């Protein structure tokens, strides 16, 4: 199983807490962050970005790299940004301003690619759809709008259609507090929660309201079960309501139609919810500064993280300052940089190489018609390299044997070469034999002559 970390931030300056989900060990605490609700994102697991509540005049968005507690990059958008969202590739960051404008930045260069007027009042939440091609925004004016990224960038088509959004849902009467989208591209559902104490389920395919669920309390956070049979709604009364999605509604309980139960520990209001990757652990950030992990199968709390900041006033006295509400929790795969240094695994050592964070987000756009919009392609770790090494000798050898069999220029040339050498050798042989013959001949003649002479001598002497 992959390691996961829980990341939480609050609206007071308690920093960003980061815990290992299974062991409960706390990693670094990233300093000086006071985020609005939905203002904390992890950019494709590469680094953390959070919008800030502090500056009211102009916005501020800060980023942290995983292995340093200090702020690494500060950006100052034109206005205060509340929600942030990032697509799964980590190529764009979208921010919603208090004026209702939506900003879209390119992560790699920090350039402000687009800015458009999305809502009449402040944007409160931003989500990308499952297939990353649509952006869904909710606002204080109660409207939920669906934007197609394609349309946002296509000015020609905008003029033809007259408006930018794909859908605009305005059934919520009070500010929208949270939005989640479900599985599937075009057939996904959207669930929006609002201060009007309702959650509404929308169909992305038809752009219609599918279901309206009224809760006993205001809902500030929702989380959708990965199997989409229920969703969890965290209320201000501290209860996490379980609302069913695809069963026939019955109201044989105290909560209302479609609500089939609660997770509750008498705590304070729930400000944020997130599912772990296994789909059964639900992480809830609460108003009292705690992050609780629920097991949704047994309805038990299995872990509690304290987000509250501990400040040491006196050498021997630890004062626990109650932190503000934990209004952002994220559960993500443990980034490689957070693996301990001692770990011999390759993952950790690879991430050690410090990759500088991308430049800050632009305040005003510097894009004109001539500016080149390049795509940045980050290298993919190719783990399969060892396995698909291809050896070619056998193949080429068989080809060459084939050529030899059927005769080709290369083969005949080699044959010729061979024959030439053969010939040369044979010639040498011939020469040699000739020489030998010559020698033998001479020898024999000599012998013969000598012999005769000897014979003559013999006869002469005898």
């Amino acid at each position, binding site marked *: 199983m992959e390691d996961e970390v829980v990341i939480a931030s609050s609206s007071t300056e308690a920093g960003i807490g980061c815990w290992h989900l299974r062991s409960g060990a706390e990693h670094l605490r990233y300093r000086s962050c006071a985020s609005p609700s939905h203002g904390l994102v992890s950019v494709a697991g590469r680094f953390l970005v959070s919008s800030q509540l502090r500056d009211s005049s102009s916005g501020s968005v800060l980023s942290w790299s995983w292995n340093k507690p200090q702020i690494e990059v500060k950006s100052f958008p034109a206005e205060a940004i509340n929600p942030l969202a990032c697509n799964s590739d980590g190529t764009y960051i979208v921010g919603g301003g208090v004026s209702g404008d939506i900003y879209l930045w390119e992560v790699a260069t920090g350039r402000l690619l687009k800015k458009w007027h999305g809502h009449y009042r402040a944007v409160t939440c931003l989500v990308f759809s499952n297939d990353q091609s649509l952006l869904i925004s909710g606002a204080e004016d109660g409207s939920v709008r669906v934007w197609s990224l394609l349309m946002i960038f296509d000015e020609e088509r905008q003029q033809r259609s007259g408006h930018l959004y794909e859908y605009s849902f305005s059934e919520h009467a009070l500010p929208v507090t949270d939005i989640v989208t479900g599985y599937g591209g075009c057939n996904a559902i959207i669930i929006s929660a609002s201060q009007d104490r309702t959650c509404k389920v929308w169909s992305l395919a038809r752009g219609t309201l599918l279901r309206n669920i009224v809760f006993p309390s205001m809902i500030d956070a929702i989380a959708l079960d990965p199997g989409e049979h229920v969703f969890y709604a965290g209320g201000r009364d501290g209860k996490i309501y379980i609302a069913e999605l695809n069963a026939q509604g019955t109201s044989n309980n105290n909560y209302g139609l479609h609500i089939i139960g609660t997770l509750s520990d008498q705590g304070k209001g729930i400000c944020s919810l997130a599912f772990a990757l296994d789909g059964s652990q639900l992480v809830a950030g609460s108003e009292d500064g705690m992050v609780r992990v629920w097991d949704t199968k047994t309805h038990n709390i299995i872990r509690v993280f304290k987000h509250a900041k501990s400040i040491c006033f006196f050498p021997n006295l630890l004062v626990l300052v109650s932190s503000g509400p934990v209004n952002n929790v994220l559960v993500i795969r443990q980034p490689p940089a957070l693996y301990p240094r001692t770990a011999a695994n390759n993952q950790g050592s690879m991430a050690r190489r410090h990759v500088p964070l991308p430049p800050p987000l632009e305040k005003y756009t510097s894009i004109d018609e001539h500016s*080149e919009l390049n795509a940045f392609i980050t290298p993919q770790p190719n783990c399969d390299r060892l396995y698909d090494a291809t050896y070619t000798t056998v193949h080429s050898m068989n080809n060459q044997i084939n050529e030899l069999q059927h005769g080709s220029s290369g083969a005949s040339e080699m044959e010729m070469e061979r024959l030439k050498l053969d010939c040369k050798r044979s010639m040498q042989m011939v020469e040699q034999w000739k020489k030998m013959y010559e020698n033998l001949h001479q020898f024999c003649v000599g012998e013969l002559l000598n012999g005769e002479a000897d014979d003559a001598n013999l006869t002469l002497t005898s």
Partner: protein
Amino acid sequence: MAAFDHIQSMNDVALKARLLRSLIKERIPDEKQQLRNPLELSHVVSAIKTHQLISERLLQSDDDNKKLIEKWKSAVDSWIERLLLLASSNMPDKCWAGISLLGVTCEECSSERFLASYSVWFQKLLSHLQPPAESHFVKAACCVTISDLLTRLSGYPNMKKDGTSHAAKLVQPVLKLMQEDSSDAEGAVSLLCTILSFFPSSVQKNYDSAEAAIVTKLMSGKCNANMLKKLALCLSLLPKSRGDEDSWSLMMQKILLAINLLLNDSFQGLEEETTTKEAMRALVPPGKDPPPPLGGLTILDISNKATRPERLFMPSISALLLCCSTMLKTSYPVQINVPVRSLLMLAGRVLMVDGSLPHTLYPIMTAMQQECICAELPLQHSYSLDILCGVVKEARSQLFPHAAHIIRLVTEYFKRCAFPELRIKVYALVKLMLMSMGVGVTMYIAEDIVSNASADLDSVGDLGGESSSGSVLKTSEAVPQPMQKKRKHDMTITSSGNQSQTTSLHNNPAPISVRIAALEALETLLTVGGGASRSGGWRSKVDVLLITVSTDACKGGWAKQETYAYTLPDSKPSWADFQLASLRALLASLLSPGRIRPPYLAEGLELFRRGMRETGTKVADFCAHALLTLEVLIHPRTLPLIDIASSFEYPVNGVNDGFMGNDTYSGAKKHHLYSGGTSRNGPEYPESEEDDLYEKWVNDGDGSNPPVTEQENNMVVEKTSPPAEPLVSIEGPSGSKAPEDKGKGILVEEVDKVSEIPSQTDDRHATDMETEVAAATGGDLEMAAGRSFAAVSGSEGGKELMFALGDDDKLMDEIPDIVDVEPDSDEE
């Protein structure tokens, strides 16, 4: 050795040593022996590979037979000794045999042995390249063997340094070999590829000369296709040797500039002057210095008509385009910065030239020149499409700023593109775009895909009068007729009663491969965006098309797939592939959620059932999978969140697309497309929406959704009958207008389905489903009603029902569109 020293079995280690020894003795030539028959060598290689004769790896942990291991070791020793001996022989054939077998050894031998002796082998091999050996065979074998040696070496991470220093020695001789005009160059290029991909930094010192050598060869016009591919790969791997971001960008910029310069000359008179200027300005912005020329060839060198014959221009352009697309495909160790816009401009520039001369201008090129250009254009288009594919694949989500550009390019090109190969590529490109950019894209290009795919798949339309009776699609699609059901009926009759169709399908001008590509594109379209709200217009068309195509494809029985597979290594797609593709697309059409139950579910199931019986074929495998998947559709495990009842804007039998399509998708009314559902109140009346917000909420609270229905009804009216006044469209559809038998047929069918659903059929559910049925039929009727401007009579019934149900809050909540419900009594 004793004659009766038997081994245990074929797994025995003793066998390996013995087998190897006898191979050495009998099949491998030595000093004196001649290489008798080269075929013997391939026997040797296959024996070595099957029995792993030189792997020196033990299957079981048999430590006891140390002696055997020693024996094996010494056998391998003598094997290598023999090979080295052969490799140094001055007889070219023996030398070749030794080198080739050494290559096999590099692949097969144990790691210890390899690491211990590779440098000796390397030196031996290098001696044949520097100075180059006489025989081409020897040189080629040498290149391949060294390449395998380096490949093996790259598998050991701690040998990087050694490998690099060894590879560095190779670069000079390889570059020299490359410049030769013979077949040697091919081996050298492959070797260079290996060096660059495994030990790139060894080329660092010779970067410029390598670039020059590659580019010269590439532009020489003397390379075959395979060689060009390898050269392009080399060029694209070259920046890896410096290993930084800039060298990749620089290389890309150089290539782009070179192509555009060549295009300026070649396309003179074929494209407008402004295109030329724009392209150049985008590449070299005013005030910036152009990059150094590619491969050291100055612009004059590249486009100098005196030194380079003009007919070489076009092949050079093609080669460079190939480099461009290869550069996009190759992976790099660092982040790279892809100039998307320049690439798109280049691809667009090439794709928009079709060789036709502008009418107004006085032709400034000879017929010969034009012929020369047109001959090469298809290849260039194909490479340009590759570039587009590469961009889409690599840039993924970063493509959004450029998506509109690409879409315009693709839709424009779709109209012009006639060559089968190119159409296949366009379909593949469209598929990629759908996959990487998601639902957003579907609404932009769905119409184009559908119209093109139906043109390609329209089996008879292209044949004209050739077979008049077999026109399945003609009857169902040609003229929009008001009676939709009847047409469906027609279709089934023709498709079952006409046997000549199968033959006419085979004569179809659109090749099977194109049709497969079209089917794949449709499949992807349905997968990604089948249920999208705006799919109404094309969805029904696609559903009909796919059931028709797959019925036809599978009518003549199931093709045997493997018949010719072994005779043709790169055979064209067969009829069986077409059948498979059509079934795949059909499954997507059945599964992709639409407004209504899949209309052709029964036919589809029947096809899959039949296909599953052909066990052992791919079709059967797929059909089994399809049936498994469809099971969930037939027996849903949960109740749907989406009420099918609200789907009244979709034609029930889905054939009146002409009507729907014309109305909703005409350019003038484009905005209807984006205003589905509730957003009708968006652009025009932003204020009013705010005003009654509270009332809406209150209404929501007690269960019914008047605003929604009201808007939807408005929409229906607008869509169906533009001239009609909104007043006519009161809730209920007209029962009196019920077209005779068809509505009932549907009703019966639907009710049957209801009874199929096993569990959960309590009363309320049944009501729900019936409601759905009625509404679905009602939607159909309403269309007819809307046109004949009398739709009032149903309204009372609708209201009645609303009251009847209105006292039950729970129920109301589940049927938000209750007002559309037509009382059952009207139907029966």
